[in-house]
């Protein structure tokens, strides 16, 4: 697992460098993700330590954005003032997004079945 973590950190570092010097519009970690993905596709398989660390991260991804999300306490007055707008926007948007994606998939993929 440690060797997996080292690999991930190296790709993250590479992503940060590419972001800083070449493609500033994309965040470093996203570039690291894209580079690692391309590497995995070219190589054709992912080693077990990489699988272990990525499983650990995706199982507890939520933990990592708690410190930032707690910052919501600083925005409470602003959110309260616009509560109705925020709630309406979030609810309607999620309903429309699910509907659009599902309907378009069904239209393009044609058959509404579980067969591949």
């Amino acid at each position, binding site marked *: 697992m440690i060797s997996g973590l080292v690999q991930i*950190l190296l790709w993250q570092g590479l992503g940060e460098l590419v972001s800083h010097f070449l493609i500033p519009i994309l965040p470093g970690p996203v570039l690291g993700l894209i580079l690692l*993905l391309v590497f995995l596709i070219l190589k054709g398989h992912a080693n077990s330590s990489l699988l272990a660390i990525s499983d650990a991260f995706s199982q507890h991804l939520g933990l990592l*954005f708690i*410190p930032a999300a707690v910052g919501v306490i600083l925005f409470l007055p602003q959110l309260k003032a616009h509560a109705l707008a*925020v709630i309406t926007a979030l609810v309607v948007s999620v309903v429309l997004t699910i509907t659009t994606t599902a309907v378009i998939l069904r239209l393009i993929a044609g058959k509404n079945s579980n067969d591949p």
Partner: protein
Amino acid sequence: MIREQPQIADIWVYLSGSPLFALVVTLAAYQLGNLLYQRTNKNPFANPVAIAVVLIALVLYLTDMPYQKYFEGAQFVHFLLGTATVALAVPIYKGFSILKTRLIPVTVALVCGGVVSVASAVGIATFMGADAAIIGALYPKSVTAPIAMGIAERLTVSPTLTAVFAVVTGILGAILGSFILNLLGMKAWWQRGFAMGVAAHGIGTSRAFSVHPEAGLYASLAMGMHGILGAILIPLLSLYIR
């Protein structure tokens, strides 16, 4: 008795000054949230992140600790967000191997779903008179939170508001998803899962996995693809809409 008081205060000053306090509070709150989530059979209402945020806010309020001071300690957890983002490459890679011939339909559906997500949220919030900080933070809210926060930084809007909107979107999607998909008469598990992943990222994916494994696989693929495409297209889209 009289000497006891300052001693306890001293200990408190020492503890609250080190990162240990913020780290313990963060992990313990998450642990508790997770426990409740498991106990309620993964009910989306008992979202572990939402529970943890409320608990920590309560602790900060009761101990009179400013958020900035809490974050100084909790930043060690926060730092791993970038690392976790890079690690998302592995599930996306695994997802690609199940795609085969479906790459074009899922990409088209993803782009349409993503555009509708941004346009509807931003449009409604603007129409209802929300302020610019809130509207800006709504752009990346359907993207998985770690990537959404990176996009928010590039858009110079608050990553905090974005993270909160992303979590609420995920919870709403997990609660409403099955209902909407039933109403639409969607039968194919992979299509249902993919729609959940596009709209409700990680939380929707976790919900999809608990409904059907194939739905879960496609949901996690949708979440990953939305993360990558969102990071590339949302900054461009925001320039166009503004």
